């Protein structure tokens, strides 16, 4: 089919090759120069970079808070910080880590990696991607500015009403928290939609579902989980803010609202949330293991099934957070069984990774060390999780430091260790340079041992009867030593993180320059230069197996025919990834930023008056209309082979 003037349009392939092609593509895809270009960019790599940097900033902030808490808890009856401030601190720690670090950083990794792994030039809906980052940033800043102003939320990251309701949480603290949730929900939902669309429609020709890298599978499952779970918490936080601001009665038992409604809605999101954070770790570990053992991951189909199974099961076990609320006992048995069932796919995964190492030729470099740390830590966390799934054990251990230990084992062990490994592994793809292996190993040991020293004693503290969320504990209950140990451990752990950050900052400038594929890995992201050019691939690669680079070490087959004078993506079919359409990819735009600014104004002012929702929607609508204003013929065209 021919368009416009009938003149042949510039395309890659026969017409353009080599340097000329690079130059032409670069002109088309490069972002505008200067600050303006930085602000308006729609390049998924740029946005992922700033997402990751922001998320790690929040990690550092949240980590500093945890150090303050550990200092307070190092000795019994300590008067270091006031209880009011302590409540804000632990709330901020949990909120920051869950909403502002863990979920966004995992999404950011997907935003960076998925288009590269599936051989596409950009993510789907790149402007939405830009918008999501600004929303996330605004939510994070809102929360932290509030904290600095001493109006940080203080009802815990779970914010159970009635404690978080209008009567027992005066002021705007909880409203700020609830609106922060709204910000991050918008951001997360946006990214998830992009990721799903990208994965389903933009895979390189030949990359059938069964040939997708495991991390892409995980991203698909996680994004769908986000789409299904996050609306629950967005709704819950809207209910809460309505209760607090306009006097609705959702959570007021006196007027036949129900305090437990919140818990159901929150944990319907909150439990999948844990897997949303953990499953990307599964993806990282699978990729790292394959690369560093130089063997394809054992049991690929099983791993995929396990990920899908966990994704489904995650929605059926939120009630195990509520065993102490006095729900009917028979119902508990179902949730016990469902919670325990998660151990089966997890166990299969663990086996597959160890089997891969066992059967491969492992190179013990930092990323693989993190995998081993992950396996050990996550297995321990999983086993304590099985204990907590049992109703009688949970009733004893619930809301104690045993649970604190458990979920840090699962979340840090299951998600942060793989993440640190993943950062080390893909660092050359981010920056073009390798991280220092020596410093990397040092920081690994600090992190791993510091972690165990911090959180292992907490199991014991919980069994001894130390409840969570206390700003102090009395002398003489035998809690002194375990808490002191944990505090020491926390500082060791913090040292490890500090070394990791130092390593990444130093390596960014002075690290060994990496080639396109420094680890001899198999995925498509290694088929392009490090860091990748704005257009990712000069030609769209064609895939015929799960390990394209191992199969075609020297010459990856490519397909040609995409326009080079316009941003164009190749769309393929959902299952078989046959080339289908050529789709224009949006140009840089400042409208996502303006839309984010107007939305921010709407969200923040709706903390103060419900009318803001009405008035504030006008500028939001204006910016959205400008953003979506049609700009000439943009219909996708069939592929010309």
């Amino acid at each position, binding site marked *: 089919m021919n368009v416009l003037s009938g003149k042949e349009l510039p395309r890659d392939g026969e017409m353009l090759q080599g340097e000329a092609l690079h130059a032409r593509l670069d002109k088309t895809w490069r972002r505008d120069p200067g600050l303006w270009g930085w602000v308006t960019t729609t390049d998924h790599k740029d946005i992922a970079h700033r997402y990751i940097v922001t998320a790690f900033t929040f990690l550092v902030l949240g980590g500093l808070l945890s150090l303050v808490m550990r200092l307070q808890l190092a000795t019994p009856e300590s008067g270091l910080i*006031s*209880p*009011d401030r302590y*409540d804000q601190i632990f709330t901020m720690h949990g909120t920051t880590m869950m909403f502002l670090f863990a979920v966004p950083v995992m999404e950011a990794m997907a935003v960076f990696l998925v288009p590269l792994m599936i051989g596409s030039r950009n993510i789907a809906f790149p402007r939405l991607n830009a918008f999501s980052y600004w929303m996330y940033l605004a939510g994070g800043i809102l929360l932290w500015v509030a904290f600095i102003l001493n109006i940080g939320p*203080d*009802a*815990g990251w779970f914010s*159970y009403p*009635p404690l978080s309701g209008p009567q*027992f949480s005066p002021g705007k603290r909880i409203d700020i928290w609830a609106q922060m949730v709204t910000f991050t929900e918008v951001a997360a939902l946006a990214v998830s939609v992009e990721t799903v669309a990208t994965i389903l429609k933009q895979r390189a020709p030949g990359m059938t579902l069964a040939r997708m890298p495991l991390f892409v599978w995980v991203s698909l499952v996680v994004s769908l989980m986000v789409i299904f779970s996050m609306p629950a918490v967005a709704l819950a936080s809207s209910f809460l803010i309505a209760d607090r601001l306009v006097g609705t009665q959702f959570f007021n*038992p*006196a007027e036949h609202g*129900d*305090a437990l409604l919140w818990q159901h809605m929150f944990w319907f999101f909150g439990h999948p949330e844990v897997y949303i954070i953990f499953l990307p770790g599964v993806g990282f570990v699978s990729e790292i293991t394959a690369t560093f053992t130089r*063997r*394809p991951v*054992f049991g690929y189909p*099983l791993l995929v099934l396990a990920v899908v199974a966990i994704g489904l099961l995650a929605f059926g076990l939120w009630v195990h957070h509520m065993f*102490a*609320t*006095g729900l009917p006992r028979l119902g*508990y048995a179902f949730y016990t069984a469902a919670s*325990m069932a998660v*151990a*089966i796919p997890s*166990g*299969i995964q663990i*086996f597959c990774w*160890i*089997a891969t*190492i*066992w*059967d*491969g*030729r492992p190179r013990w470099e930092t990323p693989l060390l993190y995998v*081993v740390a992950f*396996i*050990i830590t996550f*297995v321990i966390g999983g*086993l304590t999780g*099985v204990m907590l799934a*049992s109703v*009688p*054990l949970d*009733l*004893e251990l*619930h*809301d*104690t430091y045993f649970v604190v230990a458990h979920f840090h084992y699962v979340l840090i062990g299951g998600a942060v260790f793989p993440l640190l490994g993943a950062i080390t592994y893909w660092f050359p793809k981010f920056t073009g340079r390798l991280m220092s292996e020596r410093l990397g190993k040092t920081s690994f040991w600090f992190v791993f041992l510091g972690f165990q020293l911090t959180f292992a004693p907490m199991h014991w503290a919980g*069994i*001894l*009867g130390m*409840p969570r*969320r*206390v*700003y*102090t504990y009395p002398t003489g*209950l035998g809690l002194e030593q375990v808490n002191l140990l944990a505090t020491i451990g926390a500082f060791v752990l913090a040292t490890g993180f500090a070394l990791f950050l130092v390593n990444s900052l130093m390596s960014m400038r002075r690290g060994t320059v990496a080639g396109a594929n420094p680890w001899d890995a198999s995925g498509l992201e290694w088929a392009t230069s490090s860091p990748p050019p704005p257009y990712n691939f000069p030609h769209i690669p064609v895939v015929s197996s799960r*390990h394209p680079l*191992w199969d075609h070490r020297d010459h990856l087959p490519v397909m040609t025919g995409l326009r080079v004078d316009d941003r164009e993506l190749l769309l393929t079919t959902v299952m078989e990834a046959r080339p289908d359409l050529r789709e224009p990819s949006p140009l840089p735009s400042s409208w996502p930023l303006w839309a984010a600014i107007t939305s921010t104004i709407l969200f923040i002012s709706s903390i103060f008056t419900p009318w803001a929702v009405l008035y504030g929607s006008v500028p939001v609508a204006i910016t959205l209309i400008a953003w979506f204003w049609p700009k000439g013929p943009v219909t996708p065209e069939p592929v010309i082979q």
Partner: protein
Amino acid sequence: MSGGDGLDGALFNRLFALFLIVSLTMLALVLAFLAAAWFRRGGVRQDGVADENGRASREPLLRALLIGWTALIAIGLIGLTFASFLTDRGMADAIPPDRRTINIIVTAKQFWWDVNYAFDNEPSKNIRTANELHLPVGVPARVTLKSSDVIHSFWIPNLAGKQDLIPGRVNDLVLLPNRTGVFRGQCAEFCGIQHAHMALDVTVESRAQFANWLAAQGKPAPAPASPLQKAGYLYVMNRECSGCHAIAGTAANATVGPDLTHLMSRRSLAAGTLPMGRAGLYAWVADPQGVKPGNNMPYVGLDANELHAVTAYLETLK
């Protein structure tokens, strides 16, 4: 170590031991496999090229192992689920419904426990105390749990698991202590600024001792004797104290704060914040917000004489 001093606790310990053994076994298996993988030198690549030592892939062996491993996990989980379910049933059925029990109504408030021993047929024998439970050994106690503000959680680690106290709902819990002793309970659900200082003293004693305690608690407070005590009595009756507290036998009958009738018989002050005693009383009455910031007892600003008098009177409330 928690558990073991009540029926639930004992069942908990058995179940916990079972879980611990199974978990440690699984962990040991994983670690052993991991160690084997660490020390094994090389296998193959997918392209079928044998490694330097000529060893071929052991894919079939791994498949068999995986099936075994999955089966092992499944069997273990089914076993644990059943054990857990049976224990749960055991806890629920341990006390026959027709067995005579002691009825206790515990109402959680920010940040203390209002405890009522309820005798349905004779309400005049009811006893109101605060932040402490006395239980006769071997007699089941049915605890009705209510909250008058936010969600709290009732937890006596040595005797039983937790149960939340949720406004607008009524929960209950049966305690069956099988050993005498002194235990500590604690609010387990974050309930606000002084969640950390919301403890409950539990005394499990013989039936005779318990009967004595009940009888003593049922008595009204004695009249003040010394002039200082009388001055304190007058202050308590006529000033801020009586707006929130009750003392049986006097005109003070308020319910906002803990009942003070037998204050000195308790083990601690302010829900486990201070040990009971003259020093604690002085500190608490003089500046409750300094001791437990954010609790609902206001700073009254007693002058020294008033403080001496009030404390002297409170010390008569044995």
